[in-house]
Protein backbone atom coordinates (compact mmCIF):
# COMPACT_ATOMS: atom_id res chain seq x y z
CA UNK A 1 0.00 0.00 0.00
CA UNK A 2 2.84 2.33 0.66
CA UNK A 3 4.14 1.73 -2.86
CA UNK A 4 0.64 2.36 -4.26
CA UNK A 5 0.38 5.63 -2.43
CA UNK A 6 3.80 6.62 -3.65
CA UNK A 7 2.89 5.79 -7.23
CA UNK A 8 -0.41 7.65 -7.01
CA UNK A 9 1.27 10.73 -5.65
CA UNK A 10 3.89 10.60 -8.37
CA UNK A 11 1.20 10.72 -11.02
CA UNK A 12 1.33 7.15 -12.28
CA UNK A 13 -2.16 5.98 -13.23
CA UNK A 14 -3.21 2.99 -11.17
CA UNK A 15 -6.42 1.27 -12.07
CA UNK A 16 -8.79 0.80 -9.12
CA UNK A 17 -8.52 -2.71 -7.82
CA UNK A 18 -5.00 -3.12 -9.14
CA UNK A 19 -3.81 -3.81 -5.65
CA UNK A 20 -6.04 -6.89 -5.54
CA UNK A 21 -4.76 -8.20 -8.84
CA UNK A 22 -2.22 -11.02 -8.59
CA UNK A 23 -1.28 -10.74 -12.23
CA UNK A 24 0.50 -7.53 -12.90
CA UNK A 25 0.39 -6.43 -16.53
CA UNK A 26 3.62 -5.64 -18.33
CA UNK A 27 2.59 -2.01 -18.77
CA UNK A 28 2.03 -1.69 -15.06
CA UNK A 29 5.46 -3.09 -14.36
CA UNK A 30 6.75 -0.59 -16.90
CA UNK A 31 4.88 2.19 -15.14
CA UNK A 32 6.36 1.21 -11.81
CA UNK A 33 9.85 1.07 -13.26
CA UNK A 34 9.43 4.47 -14.87
CA UNK A 35 7.98 5.85 -11.66
CA UNK A 36 11.00 4.60 -9.78
CA UNK A 37 13.09 6.42 -12.39
CA UNK A 38 10.82 9.44 -11.99
CA UNK A 39 11.70 9.67 -8.34
CA UNK A 40 15.34 10.04 -9.37
CA UNK A 41 15.39 11.55 -12.88
CA UNK A 42 12.99 14.31 -13.96
CA UNK A 43 10.77 12.68 -16.59
CA UNK A 44 8.48 14.42 -19.02
CA UNK A 45 5.69 11.96 -19.66
CA UNK A 46 5.31 8.36 -18.65
CA UNK A 47 3.02 7.33 -21.51
CA UNK A 48 2.68 8.56 -25.11
CA UNK A 49 -0.29 10.76 -25.84
CA UNK A 50 -2.75 9.43 -28.43
CA UNK A 51 -2.52 11.29 -31.73
CA UNK A 52 -5.34 13.51 -32.95
CA UNK A 53 -5.84 11.14 -35.89
CA UNK A 54 -6.31 8.11 -33.61
CA UNK A 55 -8.69 10.10 -31.40
CA UNK A 56 -10.72 11.05 -34.47
CA UNK A 57 -10.94 7.38 -35.40
CA UNK A 58 -12.25 6.62 -31.92
CA UNK A 59 -14.75 9.44 -32.33
CA UNK A 60 -16.15 7.68 -35.38
CA UNK A 61 -16.62 4.66 -33.10
CA UNK A 62 -18.67 6.88 -30.75
CA UNK A 63 -16.00 6.93 -28.06
CA UNK A 64 -16.94 9.91 -25.86
CA UNK A 65 -13.68 9.66 -23.91
CA UNK A 66 -11.81 10.47 -27.13
CA UNK A 67 -13.92 13.62 -27.49
CA UNK A 68 -13.02 14.58 -23.95
CA UNK A 69 -9.32 14.25 -24.76
CA UNK A 70 -9.69 16.26 -27.96
CA UNK A 71 -11.66 18.93 -26.12
CA UNK A 72 -9.05 19.23 -23.41
CA UNK A 73 -6.35 19.47 -26.07
CA UNK A 74 -7.94 22.00 -28.43
CA UNK A 75 -10.82 23.83 -26.74
CA UNK A 76 -8.65 26.58 -25.30
CA UNK A 77 -7.15 27.54 -28.68
CA UNK A 78 -10.56 27.30 -30.33
CA UNK A 79 -12.31 29.31 -27.65
CA UNK A 80 -9.61 32.01 -27.54
CA UNK A 81 -9.83 32.43 -31.32
CA UNK A 82 -13.62 32.47 -31.43
CA UNK A 83 -13.79 34.93 -28.53
CA UNK A 84 -11.24 37.19 -30.21
CA UNK A 85 -13.36 37.23 -33.36
CA UNK A 86 -16.84 37.52 -31.82
CA UNK A 87 -15.82 39.64 -28.79
CA UNK A 88 -18.73 38.12 -26.85
CA UNK A 89 -18.42 35.29 -24.35
CA UNK A 90 -21.91 33.78 -24.84
CA UNK A 91 -21.43 33.74 -28.62
CA UNK A 92 -17.94 32.30 -28.27
CA UNK A 93 -19.25 29.53 -25.99
CA UNK A 94 -22.06 28.79 -28.39
CA UNK A 95 -19.73 28.55 -31.39
CA UNK A 96 -17.23 26.41 -29.47
CA UNK A 97 -19.96 24.04 -28.34
CA UNK A 98 -21.29 23.87 -31.87
CA UNK A 99 -17.85 23.03 -33.25
CA UNK A 100 -17.10 20.22 -30.80
CA UNK A 101 -20.54 18.66 -31.03
CA UNK A 102 -20.31 18.71 -34.80
CA UNK A 103 -16.90 17.14 -34.52
CA UNK A 104 -18.53 14.44 -32.40
CA UNK A 105 -21.46 13.91 -34.76
CA UNK A 106 -19.64 14.16 -38.06
CA UNK A 107 -16.26 12.75 -37.16
CA UNK A 108 -16.39 10.39 -40.10
CA UNK A 109 -16.45 13.39 -42.46
CA UNK A 110 -13.03 14.50 -41.24
CA UNK A 111 -10.40 13.26 -43.62
CA UNK A 112 -6.93 12.98 -42.08
CA UNK A 113 -5.53 12.82 -45.61
CA UNK A 114 -6.50 16.45 -46.08
CA UNK A 115 -4.42 17.79 -43.25
CA UNK A 116 -3.78 17.54 -39.52
CA UNK A 117 -6.60 18.24 -37.10
CA UNK A 118 -5.36 21.39 -35.35
CA UNK A 119 -5.09 23.77 -38.34
CA UNK A 120 -8.25 22.23 -39.75
CA UNK A 121 -10.11 22.83 -36.49
CA UNK A 122 -8.78 26.39 -36.20
CA UNK A 123 -9.76 27.17 -39.80
CA UNK A 124 -13.23 25.76 -39.16
CA UNK A 125 -13.54 27.74 -35.91
CA UNK A 126 -12.51 30.96 -37.63
CA UNK A 127 -15.01 30.45 -40.44
CA UNK A 128 -17.83 29.69 -38.00
CA UNK A 129 -16.99 32.65 -35.80
CA UNK A 130 -16.83 35.02 -38.77
CA UNK A 131 -20.19 33.63 -39.90
CA UNK A 132 -21.79 34.75 -36.66
CA UNK A 133 -20.58 38.28 -37.26
CA UNK A 134 -22.72 38.38 -40.40
CA UNK A 135 -20.31 40.49 -42.26
CA UNK A 136 -21.44 42.31 -45.31
CA UNK A 137 -18.99 40.24 -47.28
CA UNK A 138 -20.53 37.05 -46.07
CA UNK A 139 -22.34 36.32 -49.26
CA UNK A 140 -19.22 36.78 -51.32
CA UNK A 141 -17.38 34.19 -49.33
CA UNK A 142 -18.02 30.59 -50.03
CA UNK A 143 -19.86 29.30 -46.99
CA UNK A 144 -19.24 25.69 -47.73
CA UNK A 145 -16.93 25.33 -44.80
CA UNK A 146 -18.39 21.99 -43.98
CA UNK A 147 -16.16 19.23 -42.78
CA UNK A 148 -15.29 17.83 -46.17
CA UNK A 149 -14.86 21.27 -47.78
CA UNK A 150 -11.70 22.06 -49.69
CA UNK A 151 -11.67 25.43 -47.91
CA UNK A 152 -10.48 23.60 -44.82
CA UNK A 153 -7.66 21.70 -46.47
CA UNK A 154 -4.42 22.59 -44.76
CA UNK A 155 -1.25 21.02 -45.94
CA UNK A 156 0.68 19.39 -43.11
CA UNK A 157 4.25 20.55 -42.64
CA UNK A 158 6.85 17.97 -41.72
CA UNK A 159 5.61 16.77 -38.31
CA UNK A 160 9.11 17.06 -36.85
CA UNK A 161 9.16 20.76 -37.65
CA UNK A 162 5.92 21.38 -35.76
CA UNK A 163 6.73 22.72 -32.35
CA UNK A 164 4.29 22.40 -29.49
CA UNK A 165 1.52 24.92 -29.41
CA UNK A 166 3.01 27.16 -26.75
CA UNK A 167 6.26 27.53 -28.72
CA UNK A 168 4.36 28.29 -31.88
CA UNK A 169 2.12 30.78 -30.10
CA UNK A 170 5.19 32.63 -28.85
CA UNK A 171 6.61 32.75 -32.36
CA UNK A 172 3.35 33.99 -33.88
CA UNK A 173 2.98 36.68 -31.25
CA UNK A 174 6.64 37.59 -31.68
CA UNK A 175 6.26 38.04 -35.43
CA UNK A 176 3.11 40.09 -34.98
CA UNK A 177 4.71 42.27 -32.30
CA UNK A 178 7.67 43.05 -34.54
CA UNK A 179 5.49 44.23 -37.40
CA UNK A 180 4.78 47.96 -37.84
CA UNK A 181 1.45 48.82 -36.21
CA UNK A 182 -0.42 49.46 -39.48
CA UNK A 183 0.79 46.22 -41.03
CA UNK A 184 -0.14 44.24 -37.92
CA UNK A 185 -3.54 45.94 -37.96
CA UNK A 186 -4.04 44.99 -41.61
CA UNK A 187 -3.38 41.32 -40.86
CA UNK A 188 -5.64 41.39 -37.81
CA UNK A 189 -8.47 42.96 -39.81
CA UNK A 190 -8.07 40.27 -42.45
CA UNK A 191 -7.82 37.33 -40.07
CA UNK A 192 -10.00 38.24 -37.07
CA UNK A 193 -12.50 40.47 -38.84
CA UNK A 194 -12.64 38.71 -42.19
CA UNK A 195 -12.06 41.83 -44.22
CA UNK A 196 -10.89 41.88 -47.83
CA UNK A 197 -7.99 43.83 -49.28
CA UNK A 198 -10.20 46.66 -50.45
CA UNK A 199 -12.12 46.88 -47.17
CA UNK A 200 -8.88 47.05 -45.20
CA UNK A 201 -7.46 49.69 -47.55
CA UNK A 202 -10.59 51.76 -47.07
CA UNK A 203 -10.59 51.35 -43.30
CA UNK A 204 -6.90 52.10 -42.84
CA UNK A 205 -6.92 54.71 -45.60
CA UNK A 206 -3.90 53.13 -47.22
CA UNK A 207 -3.28 52.28 -50.89
CA UNK A 208 -4.63 48.89 -51.97
CA UNK A 209 -1.22 47.70 -53.21
CA UNK A 210 0.35 48.52 -49.86
CA UNK A 211 -2.26 46.53 -47.98
CA UNK A 212 -1.76 43.58 -50.30
CA UNK A 213 1.99 43.45 -49.77
CA UNK A 214 1.64 44.02 -46.01
CA UNK A 215 -0.52 40.97 -45.65
CA UNK A 216 1.53 38.78 -47.96
CA UNK A 217 4.87 39.78 -46.48
CA UNK A 218 3.58 39.38 -42.95
CA UNK A 219 2.42 35.85 -43.66
CA UNK A 220 5.66 34.96 -45.44
CA UNK A 221 7.56 36.18 -42.40
CA UNK A 222 5.40 34.03 -40.18
CA UNK A 223 6.04 31.08 -42.45
CA UNK A 224 9.74 31.65 -42.20
CA UNK A 225 9.57 31.98 -38.44
CA UNK A 226 7.57 28.78 -38.07
CA UNK A 227 10.16 27.10 -40.32
CA UNK A 228 7.41 25.24 -42.07
CA UNK A 229 7.98 24.02 -45.63
CA UNK A 230 11.66 24.90 -45.52
Amino acid sequence: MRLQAHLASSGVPISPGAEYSFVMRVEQIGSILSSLLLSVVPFRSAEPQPTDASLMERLVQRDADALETLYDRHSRAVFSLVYRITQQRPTAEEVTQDIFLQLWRNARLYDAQRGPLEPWLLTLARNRALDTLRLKREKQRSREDDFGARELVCSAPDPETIADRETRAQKVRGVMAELPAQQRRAIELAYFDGMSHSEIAEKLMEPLGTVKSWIRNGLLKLRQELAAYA
Partner: protein
Amino acid sequence: MAACDQLREHYEAYAIGALDGADRAELEAHLARNCPACTAGVAQARYIVSQLALAAPDQAPPASLRAKIMEAARAEAASPQRATRIEPVVRRTWIPTWAWAAAAVLILFAAYSLYQNVKMQRDLNDLNASLDNARRARLQLDQQRATYDKAMAILQAQGTHSMPVKPSDGKMPMLQAYIHEKMGVVIAASNVPMPAQGREYQLWMVPKTGKGAPISAGVYMPDSSGSVLAVAPPMAKMEDIAALAVTEEPMGGSPQPTSRPMWMGSLQ
Protein backbone atom coordinates in the same frame (compact mmCIF):
# COMPACT_ATOMS: atom_id res chain seq x y z
CA MET B 1 1.65 26.82 -65.65
CA ALA B 2 2.69 30.38 -66.47
CA ALA B 3 -0.65 31.45 -65.02
CA CYS B 4 0.16 29.58 -61.79
CA ASP B 5 3.39 31.53 -61.40
CA GLN B 6 1.39 34.74 -61.45
CA LEU B 7 -1.21 33.34 -59.06
CA ARG B 8 1.45 32.25 -56.57
CA GLU B 9 1.58 35.76 -55.05
CA HIS B 10 -2.13 35.47 -54.20
CA TYR B 11 -2.01 32.22 -52.20
CA GLU B 12 -1.61 33.93 -48.80
CA ALA B 13 -4.26 36.56 -49.47
CA TYR B 14 -6.67 33.90 -50.69
CA ALA B 15 -6.02 31.68 -47.68
CA ILE B 16 -6.75 34.52 -45.26
CA GLY B 17 -9.86 35.45 -47.28
CA ALA B 18 -8.69 38.95 -48.25
CA LEU B 19 -8.36 38.35 -51.98
CA ASP B 20 -11.17 39.78 -54.02
CA GLY B 21 -12.01 40.69 -57.58
CA ALA B 22 -10.62 39.07 -60.68
CA ASP B 23 -7.59 37.58 -58.92
CA ARG B 24 -9.84 35.66 -56.58
CA ALA B 25 -12.01 34.39 -59.44
CA GLU B 26 -8.97 33.27 -61.40
CA LEU B 27 -7.42 31.42 -58.47
CA GLU B 28 -10.74 29.78 -57.61
CA ALA B 29 -11.02 28.60 -61.20
CA HIS B 30 -7.62 26.94 -60.86
CA LEU B 31 -8.61 25.30 -57.58
CA ALA B 32 -11.87 24.10 -59.09
CA ARG B 33 -9.83 22.40 -61.83
CA ASN B 34 -7.72 20.75 -59.09
CA CYS B 35 -4.63 22.54 -60.38
CA PRO B 36 -1.90 20.74 -58.39
CA ALA B 37 0.42 23.74 -57.96
CA CYS B 38 -2.31 26.11 -56.75
CA THR B 39 -4.02 23.48 -54.57
CA ALA B 40 -0.78 22.67 -52.77
CA GLY B 41 0.24 26.33 -52.50
CA VAL B 42 -3.08 27.39 -51.02
CA ALA B 43 -3.10 24.44 -48.59
CA GLN B 44 0.32 25.49 -47.29
CA ALA B 45 -0.72 29.14 -47.01
CA ARG B 46 -3.85 28.04 -45.19
CA TYR B 47 -1.73 26.28 -42.59
CA ILE B 48 0.29 29.43 -41.97
CA VAL B 49 -2.91 31.49 -41.73
CA SER B 50 -4.39 28.97 -39.27
CA GLN B 51 -1.46 29.63 -36.95
CA LEU B 52 -2.55 33.27 -36.60
CA ALA B 53 -5.19 31.87 -34.26
CA LEU B 54 -2.41 31.51 -31.70
CA ALA B 55 -2.02 35.28 -31.71
CA ALA B 56 -5.44 35.60 -30.10
CA PRO B 57 -5.24 36.51 -26.39
CA ASP B 58 -5.42 33.33 -24.31
CA GLN B 59 -8.90 32.71 -22.98
CA ALA B 60 -9.94 29.60 -21.07
CA PRO B 61 -13.42 28.37 -21.84
CA PRO B 62 -15.62 27.96 -18.74
CA ALA B 63 -15.70 24.52 -17.13
CA SER B 64 -19.47 24.49 -17.58
CA LEU B 65 -18.97 24.42 -21.37
CA ARG B 66 -16.92 21.23 -21.16
CA ALA B 67 -19.58 19.63 -18.94
CA LYS B 68 -22.35 20.69 -21.33
CA ILE B 69 -20.61 19.34 -24.41
CA MET B 70 -19.63 16.06 -22.79
CA GLU B 71 -23.11 15.55 -21.36
CA ALA B 72 -24.65 16.01 -24.81
CA ALA B 73 -22.08 13.73 -26.44
CA ARG B 74 -22.48 10.96 -23.85
CA ALA B 75 -26.26 11.16 -24.13
CA GLU B 76 -25.95 10.71 -27.87
CA ALA B 77 -23.48 7.86 -27.47
CA ALA B 78 -25.97 6.14 -25.14
CA SER B 79 -28.89 6.50 -27.53
CA PRO B 80 -27.92 5.38 -30.99
CA GLN B 81 -31.23 6.71 -32.34
CA ARG B 82 -30.06 10.28 -32.10
CA ALA B 83 -26.77 9.36 -33.63
CA THR B 84 -28.41 7.65 -36.56
CA ARG B 85 -30.60 10.70 -37.14
CA ILE B 86 -27.49 12.77 -37.56
CA GLU B 87 -25.56 10.16 -39.47
CA PRO B 88 -28.04 8.36 -41.66
CA VAL B 89 -25.21 6.81 -43.64
CA VAL B 90 -24.16 4.84 -40.56
CA ARG B 91 -27.64 3.46 -40.01
CA ARG B 92 -26.90 0.23 -41.82
CA THR B 93 -24.34 -0.76 -39.25
CA TRP B 94 -27.01 -0.53 -36.56
CA ILE B 95 -28.85 -3.58 -37.87
CA PRO B 96 -27.91 -6.16 -35.28
CA THR B 97 -26.59 -9.57 -36.20
CA TRP B 98 -29.67 -11.33 -34.86
CA ALA B 99 -31.78 -9.35 -37.33
CA TRP B 100 -29.71 -10.68 -40.21
CA ALA B 101 -30.07 -14.19 -38.81
CA ALA B 102 -33.83 -13.73 -38.42
CA ALA B 103 -34.07 -12.40 -41.96
CA ALA B 104 -32.14 -15.43 -43.24
CA VAL B 105 -34.47 -17.80 -41.35
CA LEU B 106 -37.51 -15.98 -42.73
CA ILE B 107 -36.20 -16.20 -46.28
CA LEU B 108 -35.46 -19.92 -45.87
CA PHE B 109 -38.90 -20.48 -44.39
CA ALA B 110 -40.57 -18.51 -47.20
CA ALA B 111 -38.64 -20.51 -49.82
CA TYR B 112 -39.58 -23.78 -48.12
CA SER B 113 -43.24 -22.72 -47.89
CA LEU B 114 -43.25 -21.78 -51.54
CA TYR B 115 -41.70 -25.13 -52.45
CA GLN B 116 -44.28 -26.96 -50.31
CA ASN B 117 -47.09 -24.94 -51.82
CA VAL B 118 -45.99 -25.71 -55.38
CA LYS B 119 -45.55 -29.36 -54.53
CA MET B 120 -48.99 -29.56 -52.92
CA GLN B 121 -50.57 -27.81 -55.87
CA ARG B 122 -48.92 -30.31 -58.20
CA ASP B 123 -50.13 -33.22 -56.05
CA LEU B 124 -53.60 -31.72 -56.02
CA ASN B 125 -53.59 -31.43 -59.80
CA ASP B 126 -52.46 -35.06 -60.09
CA LEU B 127 -55.19 -36.09 -57.69
CA ASN B 128 -57.84 -34.19 -59.63
CA ALA B 129 -56.66 -35.78 -62.88
CA SER B 130 -56.88 -39.24 -61.30
CA LEU B 131 -60.33 -38.45 -60.00
CA ASP B 132 -61.44 -37.30 -63.44
CA ASN B 133 -60.07 -40.47 -64.97
CA ALA B 134 -61.83 -42.57 -62.37
CA ARG B 135 -65.02 -40.65 -62.90
CA ARG B 136 -64.76 -41.13 -66.64
CA ALA B 137 -63.96 -44.80 -66.23
CA ARG B 138 -66.90 -45.21 -63.94
CA LEU B 139 -69.17 -43.40 -66.40
CA GLN B 140 -67.92 -45.71 -69.09
CA LEU B 141 -68.56 -48.71 -66.87
CA ASP B 142 -72.03 -47.40 -66.07
CA GLN B 143 -72.72 -47.02 -69.77
CA GLN B 144 -71.37 -50.46 -70.49
CA ARG B 145 -73.38 -51.86 -67.69
CA ALA B 146 -76.54 -50.13 -68.90
CA THR B 147 -75.86 -51.41 -72.38
CA TYR B 148 -75.26 -54.87 -71.02
CA ASP B 149 -78.43 -54.76 -68.93
CA LYS B 150 -80.46 -53.64 -71.89
CA ALA B 151 -78.87 -56.29 -74.08
CA MET B 152 -79.60 -59.00 -71.51
CA ALA B 153 -83.17 -57.81 -71.23
CA ILE B 154 -83.62 -58.07 -74.97
CA LEU B 155 -81.86 -61.43 -75.17
CA GLN B 156 -84.00 -62.91 -72.42
CA ALA B 157 -87.27 -61.39 -73.55
CA GLN B 158 -89.96 -63.45 -75.26
CA GLY B 159 -90.35 -62.84 -78.95
CA THR B 160 -86.69 -62.02 -79.57
CA HIS B 161 -85.27 -63.65 -82.61
CA SER B 162 -81.72 -63.70 -83.85
CA MET B 163 -80.31 -63.36 -87.28
CA PRO B 164 -76.79 -63.20 -88.74
CA VAL B 165 -75.47 -60.00 -90.22
CA LYS B 166 -72.97 -61.08 -92.84
CA PRO B 167 -69.78 -59.28 -93.76
CA SER B 168 -69.20 -58.21 -97.30
CA ASP B 169 -65.51 -59.02 -96.79
CA GLY B 170 -65.02 -62.67 -95.99
CA LYS B 171 -62.16 -62.00 -93.62
CA MET B 172 -64.42 -60.03 -91.29
CA PRO B 173 -66.30 -61.86 -88.52
CA MET B 174 -70.02 -62.44 -88.63
CA LEU B 175 -72.22 -60.13 -86.48
CA GLN B 176 -75.18 -61.56 -84.60
CA ALA B 177 -78.35 -59.48 -84.31
CA TYR B 178 -81.10 -60.04 -81.76
CA ILE B 179 -84.33 -58.32 -82.57
CA HIS B 180 -87.34 -57.61 -80.40
CA GLU B 181 -90.35 -55.83 -81.87
CA LYS B 182 -90.71 -53.40 -78.95
CA MET B 183 -87.37 -53.42 -77.13
CA GLY B 184 -85.02 -52.95 -80.02
CA VAL B 185 -81.98 -54.56 -81.55
CA VAL B 186 -78.83 -56.05 -79.99
CA ILE B 187 -75.73 -56.42 -82.11
CA ALA B 188 -73.06 -58.73 -80.73
CA ALA B 189 -69.78 -59.88 -82.20
CA SER B 190 -66.17 -60.62 -81.37
CA ASN B 191 -62.85 -60.25 -83.15
CA VAL B 192 -64.10 -57.15 -84.93
CA PRO B 193 -61.15 -55.06 -86.11
CA MET B 194 -60.97 -51.37 -85.28
CA PRO B 195 -62.32 -49.08 -87.99
CA ALA B 196 -59.85 -46.84 -89.82
CA GLN B 197 -58.39 -43.89 -87.91
CA GLY B 198 -61.02 -41.21 -87.26
CA ARG B 199 -63.93 -43.41 -88.26
CA GLU B 200 -66.41 -45.60 -86.45
CA TYR B 201 -69.08 -48.14 -87.25
CA GLN B 202 -72.65 -46.97 -87.78
CA LEU B 203 -75.69 -49.27 -87.63
CA TRP B 204 -78.54 -48.59 -90.01
CA MET B 205 -82.08 -49.89 -90.15
CA VAL B 206 -82.95 -50.15 -93.81
CA PRO B 207 -86.72 -49.79 -94.44
CA LYS B 208 -88.61 -51.89 -96.98
CA THR B 209 -88.85 -50.45 -100.50
CA GLY B 210 -90.89 -47.28 -100.54
CA LYS B 211 -90.73 -46.85 -96.77
CA GLY B 212 -87.93 -44.21 -96.79
CA ALA B 213 -84.17 -43.84 -96.41
CA PRO B 214 -81.98 -45.89 -94.00
CA ILE B 215 -82.38 -44.85 -90.35
CA SER B 216 -79.32 -44.44 -88.14
CA ALA B 217 -79.33 -46.70 -85.06
CA GLY B 218 -76.19 -45.31 -83.46
CA VAL B 219 -72.43 -45.51 -83.75
CA TYR B 220 -70.27 -48.18 -82.16
CA MET B 221 -66.68 -49.07 -81.51
CA PRO B 222 -65.32 -52.50 -80.63
CA ASP B 223 -63.56 -52.64 -77.27
CA SER B 224 -59.88 -53.38 -76.92
CA SER B 225 -60.50 -57.14 -77.31
CA GLY B 226 -62.55 -56.61 -80.48
CA SER B 227 -65.91 -57.33 -78.85
CA VAL B 228 -68.96 -55.40 -79.88
CA LEU B 229 -72.13 -55.20 -77.85
CA ALA B 230 -74.51 -52.54 -79.10
CA VAL B 231 -78.11 -51.91 -78.29
CA ALA B 232 -80.39 -49.82 -80.46
CA PRO B 233 -83.94 -48.89 -79.63
CA PRO B 234 -86.58 -49.62 -82.26
CA MET B 235 -86.14 -46.67 -84.64
CA ALA B 236 -89.29 -47.55 -86.55
CA LYS B 237 -91.89 -50.28 -86.68
CA MET B 238 -89.72 -53.34 -86.95
CA GLU B 239 -92.19 -54.83 -89.49
CA ASP B 240 -91.29 -52.00 -91.88
CA ILE B 241 -87.54 -52.73 -91.62
CA ALA B 242 -86.13 -54.85 -94.41
CA ALA B 243 -82.56 -55.18 -93.31
CA LEU B 244 -79.79 -54.15 -90.86
CA ALA B 245 -76.60 -52.69 -92.28
CA VAL B 246 -73.30 -51.50 -90.80
CA THR B 247 -71.10 -48.93 -92.55
CA GLU B 248 -67.86 -47.21 -91.62
CA GLU B 249 -68.52 -43.51 -91.15
CA PRO B 250 -66.59 -40.48 -89.95
CA MET B 251 -66.40 -40.09 -86.17
CA GLY B 252 -69.80 -39.11 -84.80
CA GLY B 253 -71.74 -40.75 -87.60
CA SER B 254 -73.41 -39.53 -90.77
CA PRO B 255 -77.09 -38.66 -91.43
CA GLN B 256 -77.05 -41.11 -94.35
CA PRO B 257 -74.61 -43.88 -95.20
CA THR B 258 -71.59 -42.55 -97.17
CA SER B 259 -69.98 -45.90 -97.91
CA ARG B 260 -70.97 -49.38 -98.97
CA PRO B 261 -72.25 -51.59 -96.10
CA MET B 262 -69.52 -53.72 -94.51
CA TRP B 263 -72.18 -55.95 -92.93
CA MET B 264 -75.68 -56.65 -94.13
CA GLY B 265 -78.46 -58.83 -92.77
CA SER B 266 -82.04 -59.18 -94.07
CA LEU B 267 -84.93 -59.56 -91.72
CA GLN B 268 -87.21 -62.42 -92.63
